[in-house]
């Protein structure tokens, strides 16, 4: 049973100066089943974080426009989080070109707040990158966690909430939790802060946890410890998680399913074992199993340093070119200009028609003409 079902999500930002939409998320469909961890990989600017913010209803102050469906299931009730949201946006068109976007920001805010009231924090919690900036520097971490407890769980009593907060601090392996409870964020290291952030997110006891680059900005040893912690929490508590990262190793360790995003769309979607697992990687190093994957994914995997690179002094492979400019998205395949596996048979199609997601294996989808049935 999927908890979250995103269908054809579009999140655009209208740039007044350029008179055009920045198409940050352009037709993303994803599903997360209960107890499953979905990883989203991609370069910066591929729309990963905007997808997460769209789910949380935190696209607001900017001239953002959302379309599509985000189905979220709570207590057996399916709800579309984007219902009626576009009543607050007015597009003025001229000759089929959008000239201006008028957004009733206040009503839009009020509407999302109303829709998300029972969901934000309570059902979907979120961990952001940069833990030190993410905790309120003027409030002790203990109070911030117990605030989450009191806001989002049936516990309303201060003392019980404090006990619960301490419990969560212990769950995320913060030593001497009772002492740390009264610390301000400035007194904690980055890793500690991220643990406290995770505790705060878990304290809401959400049905879905969205972790947006939880290890970015931490140094390598702390990163691996945070990943260990999340792996442990996942197996002990059975949390459903959406993990956003550009670190393939993190995704590999934690995720059941993976979506590879590029230029605002999903290029490849399937089980983590099929896409990222070690044997596929080694096989594809030997140029055997390469054709299992989308050209972008295989290039991404090839750019991750492995043992062979270190031992054999092999140069790392980089993907040529720059990240897609999401204002001027080309007509054909988004990855065409950087693709190294275009062949004469499909080149025309690559240039002119955008491929859909083709089913290649058991629940493995690839957006590439190479895999057209």
């Amino acid at each position, binding site marked *: 049973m999927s908890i979250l079902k995103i269908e054809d999500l579009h999140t655009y930002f209208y740039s007044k100066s350029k008179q055009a939409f920045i198409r940050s998320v352009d037709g993303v469909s994803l599903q997360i089943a209960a107890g499953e961890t979905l990883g989203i990989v991609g370069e910066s600017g591929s729309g990963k974080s905007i997808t997460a913010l769209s789910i949380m209803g935190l696209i607001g102050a900017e001239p953002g426009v959302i379309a599509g469906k985000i189905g979220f299931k709570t207590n057996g009730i399916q709800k579309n989080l984007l219902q009626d949201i576009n009543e607050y946006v007015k597009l003025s068109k001229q000759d089929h070109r959008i000239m201006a976007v008028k957004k009733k*920001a206040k009503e839009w805010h009020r509407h999302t707040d109303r829709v998300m009231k029972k969901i934000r924090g309570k059902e979907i919690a*979120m961990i*952001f990158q940069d833990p030190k900036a*993410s905790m309120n*520097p003027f409030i002790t971490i203990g109070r911030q966690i117990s*605030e989450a407890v009191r806001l989002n769980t049936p516990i309303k009593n201060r003392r019980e909430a404090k006990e619960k907060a301490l419990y969560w601090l212990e769950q995320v392996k913060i030593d001497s939790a009772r002492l740390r409870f009264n610390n301000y964020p400035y007194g904690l290291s980055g890793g500690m802060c991220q643990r406290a952030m995770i505790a705060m997110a878990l304290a809401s006891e959400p049905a879905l946890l969205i972790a947006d680059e939880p290890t970015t900005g931490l140094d390598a040893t702390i990163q691996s410890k945070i990943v260990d912690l999340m792996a442990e929490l996942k197996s002990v508590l059975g949390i459903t998680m959406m993990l956003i990262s550009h670190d393939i190793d993190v995704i590999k360790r934690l995720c059941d399913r993976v979506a590879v995003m590029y230029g605002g769309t999903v290029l490849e979607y399937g089980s983590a074992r099929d896409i990222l697992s070690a044997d596929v990687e080694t096989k594809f190093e030997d140029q055997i199993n390469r054709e299992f994957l989308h050209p972008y994914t295989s290039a991404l995997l090839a750019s991750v340093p492995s043992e062979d690179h270190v031992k054999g002094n092999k140069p790392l492979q980089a993907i040529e070119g720059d990240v897609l400019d999401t204002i001027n998205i080309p007509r054909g395949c988004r990855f065409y200009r950087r693709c190294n596996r275009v062949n004469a048979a499909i080149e025309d199609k690559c240039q002119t028609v955008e491929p859909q997601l083709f089913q290649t294996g058991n629940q493995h989808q690839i957006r590439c003409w190479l895999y057209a049935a």
Partner: protein
Amino acid sequence: MKLSAIRPVALLLARELIITALLLLGVSLVVFIVLYLSPGDPFSQLIATQQATGPSQPKTSDALQTFSAFQQYLIWLTHLLQGDFGASLRTGLPVLNEIVRVGINTLYLTIGSMLVTLLVAVPVALSSARRGMTMLNWPFTMFAYIISALPVFWLGYVVIYIFLHKFNLFPIIFGFSNNQKLSWLYFLLPIFVLGIGNGTLSEIVRYLREEMGRVLAEDYIRIARAKGASIWKHAFKEGFLLPVTEIIAAKIPFILGGAVVVEQVFNWPGMGRMAWQAAQDRDYPVIMGIAIMAALIVRCGSLLQRVVSIVVNPRASRT
């Protein structure tokens, strides 16, 4: 509030007390030198205005001149340290009592006007920090800017003209008998004029909007939203309390300066009017006393701001 904040606050208070004492000494010295160098003396002023000649005045004048200026200052200072501000040369009443008596009126005026300023400025600033300039808060912001650019005495006279001469609404405060109904309304007029016209209105709008806008864009506010908590609660300390105390502490001298003018215009018997009168009469003890009091009030304001920032900000209270 917090136990951990008591020690730093006590340390701060001790340090500030010493600084304040030195500062007051400096203020009194400077004011004394200015008075000493300024032309005229209280007795020639009295003589000029009253045209009264008597044998007694030259005598006291002589008595004063037997001391050098420096000695006069030291005598005044030793008296001050014993809590004696001296007596007014004009009325003969003790200066301290007089200052306290009229100081209460000035306190009403300045604190009341500060509340008016905040009541107008805070909603405008917060709404434009949250939503940017909208059709609703744009006119209010413009109004705040324009009204702050007007000189306060002009505003005062315009208000008096409109209310007294056109509508014949309020008699001038304290100048007439107070037996009409709504006499409390008479107090509000100068309070409103000072609150809106003293120039701090636009400063508070601008500063608070910038600070609150900056804080609302912080990551931790987004987290608070994601958590389902109130963003105002999380933004309160950094985005509201600190900037507001900061700007009020910085603007107390301006508010006092504005009070001098408004008291003059509205015939409000406060410290400002007393200072004005004393300056015209060369009433040295009164001028010195008021200067000391004004410096003390300004110090108290900045002290309050320091205490608030230490209590609120955990990083500041660590030392």
